[in-house]
């Protein structure tokens, strides 16, 4: 049953009506070129810790954002009020900001309509999950962890959202979506384990199974020993792969490369990674989420970012494509902005080595469940630092021997992706530092752990 707070989302027709109101207000000011972005959603999240629900929230919010072009100038104004008077005010504000700009000879006209393929990512049942349903799933998960003599903390979140972009050149793109997320940390006296799942259809998430996985990791990592820092063979589970490797995808941007802030500057076409690394951006992949068009309304193209270790394609916004006489790829952020574009639907090609086989084939190594607080140390060598967390294990003789204290790493991503020995099949993975993606587990040699913490 839909809760009282969750007014149904704006339909495509209602968005079109909002656009017409804004366009009318713009015409009244003598402005014809207008773009309107409408976003709205209802979300709810049940949070638990110490084996009890402790925060339990719901939010509904929307935004209408107007960009005008007036004689080579542009600016954006936004509001979350969608009544007629507020729409007129936000158009007037956008006009005021726009007229105060200097003309930009390189400013492009608004995008033309280009209907790409749609993707169906809205599920009624997920949109209608109630507080009681979330609480029951949470209670079951807590029961599993508590039954193992451990303490559980986590979230169960469900949401429904829509995103639309309309403009005065006929563009009318609209995308509705639902999303569910469940994550759980199981804590024992001196150890912990973690698991997380996300999907557009909440039926694809199994909270009980995730709770069992987290509890098993907490049990297996009891009484962790301290190992010295150094170079180890590591097996990174998919969540660890996505959070670490995910730090580089903002660099697959034509604007970032042009700016000299990307590690791919002067490296397009080079073989930077191992032969076994192939990465696409593919919003149409069955395990992906998100709208099939970008912040400028351009349909998202499938990009071969890396093929057999070679850097092949990068994302282009309309402005970046114009500067380099090529086509936009549908990865631009809403204009005006200085960042440009980025691929957001990453699919890292998997291999055929299941995680269990990777472990079985490892004489001595470290199994990493997840990583934490990853930050860039060097922007061109793409050295990242961060910590292991919630399930770090020593592998000896092809089996998990015991838990180890958490490490700090300082690891270059170019080196990492050149040292991959094996990949598991890809799965939809979810972490906390990068956006969700399709990623495999990776076995990597010569991974640099530089310090050890106290737990």
């Amino acid at each position, binding site marked *: 049953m839909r809760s*009282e*707070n969750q*007014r149904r989302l704006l339909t495509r027709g209602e968005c079109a009506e909002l656009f017409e109101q804004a366009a009318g207000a713009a015409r009244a000011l003598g402005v014809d070129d207008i773009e309107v972005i409408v976003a709205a959603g209802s979300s709810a999240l049940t*949070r*638990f810790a*110490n*084996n*009890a*629900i*402790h925060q*339990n*929230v*719901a939010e509904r*919010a929307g*935004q209408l954002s107007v960009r005008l072009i007036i004689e080579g100038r542009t*600016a954006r*104004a936004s*509001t*979350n*009020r969608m009544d007629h008077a*507020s729409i007129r005010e936000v158009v007037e504000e956008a006009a005021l900001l726009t007229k*105060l*700009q200097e003309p*930009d000879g390189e400013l492009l006209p608004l995008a033309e309509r280009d209907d790409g393929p749609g993707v169906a990512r809205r599920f009624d049942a997920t949109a209608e999950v*109630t*507080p009681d349903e979330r*609480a029951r799933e*949470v209670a079951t998960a*807590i029961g599993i962890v508590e039954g193992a003599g451990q*303490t559980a*903390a*986590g*979230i169960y*979140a469900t949401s429904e959202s829509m995103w639309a972009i309309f403009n005065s050149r006929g563009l009318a793109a609209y995308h509705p979506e639902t999303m569910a997320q469940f*994550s759980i*940390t199981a*804590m024992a006296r001196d150890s912990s384990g*973690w698991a997380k799942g996300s999907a557009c259809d909440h039926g694809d998430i199994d909270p009980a199974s995730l709770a069992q996985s987290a509890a098993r990791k907490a049990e297996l990592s009891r009484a962790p020993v301290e190992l010295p820092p150094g170079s180890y063979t590591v097996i990174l589970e998919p969540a660890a792969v996505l959070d670490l490797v995910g730090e580089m995808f903002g660099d697959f941007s034509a604007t970032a490369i042009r700016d*000299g*802030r990307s590690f791919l*500057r002067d490296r397009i076409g080079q073989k930077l990674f191992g032969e076994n690394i192939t990465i696409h951006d593919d919003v149409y992949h069955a395990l992906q989420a998100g709208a099939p068009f970008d912040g400028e309304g351009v349909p998202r193209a499938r990009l071969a970012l890396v093929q057999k270790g070679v850097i092949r394609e990068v994302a282009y916004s309309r402005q970046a494509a114009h500067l380099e006489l090529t086509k936009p790829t549908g990865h631009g952020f809403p*204009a*005006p902005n*200085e960042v440009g574009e980025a691929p957001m639907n990453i699919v890292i090609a998997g291999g055929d080595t299941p995680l269990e086989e990777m472990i079985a084939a490892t004489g001595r190594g470290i199994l990493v469940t997840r990583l*934490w*607080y990853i*930050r860039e*140390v060097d*922007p*061109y060598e793409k050295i990242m*630092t961060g*910590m292991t*967390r*919630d399930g770090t294990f020593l592998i000896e003789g092809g089996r998990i021997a015991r838990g180890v204290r*958490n490490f*700090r790493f*300082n690891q270059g991503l170019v080196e990492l992706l050149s040292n991959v020995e094996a990949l598991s099949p890809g799965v939809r993975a979810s972490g906390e530092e990068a956006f969700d993606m399709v990623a495999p587990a990776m076995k990597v040699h010569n991974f640099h752990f530089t*310090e050890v*913490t*106290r737990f």
Partner: protein
Amino acid sequence: MKQLALEALDAAVRRGVSYADVRAIEIRDRQVSTKNGKAGHVSSSVSMGLGIRVLAHGCWGFAATDDLSKMGIEAAAALALAIARAGTLARKQDVVLAPEEKYEAEWVSPVRIDPFSIPVDRNVALLLEVDRELRRNPGVTLAEGAMSFERRRQVFASSLGSVIDQTRYLSGVGYSALCYKDGEIQKRSYPNSFGGQHQLKGYELVEEWNLVENAARIAEEAVALHDADQCPELTCDLILDSSQLGLQIHESIGHPIELDRVLGSEANYAGMSFLTVDQLNRLRYGSDMVNVVSDARPEHGPGLGTFLFDDEGVPAQSTDIIRNGLFTGYLTSRETAPAIGQTRSNGAMRADGWGRIPLIRMTNVSLLPGDQTLAEVFEGTEHAIYMQTNRSWSIDDKRYNFQFGCEIGWEVKNGKRVRMLKNPSYSGISTEFWNACAAIAGPEHWILWGTPNCGKGQPEQVMGTGHGASPSRFSGIKVGGAYAE
């Protein structure tokens, strides 16, 4: 807005709750940026909504809405109650709140120049003037500048009878020069990285920092870093400028003292803390000269954590966190304060907008100035490395082990800078680091820095926090480890 807040409060109370509070908020902001001689983005936004928090059946429920019609408010109140009721399916014990008084207050943070009275073309013109100065140096390949301004009015109303109307003005400004050359990227920022300086001020903040006058130096340093020596890997004395020390405070003191984190509420995401409750008034957190307060009162300064009341209606306070090196205080809420035997919250509950519940957040967590001159900080050691302006930051989920990188370093011998060092970094364990504090410069060098991007909570909230610090020296710190082979 007051009427909206009271209507929403009535809608909640009428349904039968043991406690309710409402925050009705209107936020107006402006963002301006420039990049290599052109406006980057110019935008403004307005957002208005309210959040209803109820305590019923011993559980919390919260619902936020931008539908401010009577029907929308009633629906949000009903949902908040339904959510609280659902919480009973996984309840261990009833939530009990520390007592608090009823307050009625109105407050507007002091501004000398309303930032929204300055036309946006003047914002852009100043940033472009800085941009020209930066790019006068041919080595600068990317010049970026930004300003941000926010006016946030919040009316808080609670079933205790409190009605608190606060308006806060927040301003931020900063710029950077990036130099890409031969497969290496170096960058310098002013007055701080990641957006510059942010305070509870009006446009006067922009005028205080001599932006144009410092641009040539910043550009020169960014370019010179390419030819500087790599920061060596060694253990030595470390001197930090006040902005980097502000972030050090944030990560290794500010987060560990959040009592909700200590008690496990953040275990699944932000993590927990090494500061277990048995450490209070026992742990030697720092050397004798280390004194840290959490102070939200306006008299502490115009920080991002300055207010008159927190987001559950508790007056702003100053709490001793570390007194002469001894750990003496946590950041608390009405729900958590009793867990450490305190009868009252010290007022650290904050939400990042109308759509989110308040969490324990840093206010202004500041290292009080010492009694040494800046010269004494530098001259009190034969050999040190001086680091300025944060470049990267990372700390484990219990806040023991940290590593920071800075934009620029200097080798210091007998008080004099003898050479520039690139890619400087340092690392350590929080309590060992603060116990190694050997010198703190005096109040004339103390700056209340703003950290505008502190993340916590699920769903994540981004909060601004304040951190006062003056340049300080630490003995025997491991440096250069981030680039170790």
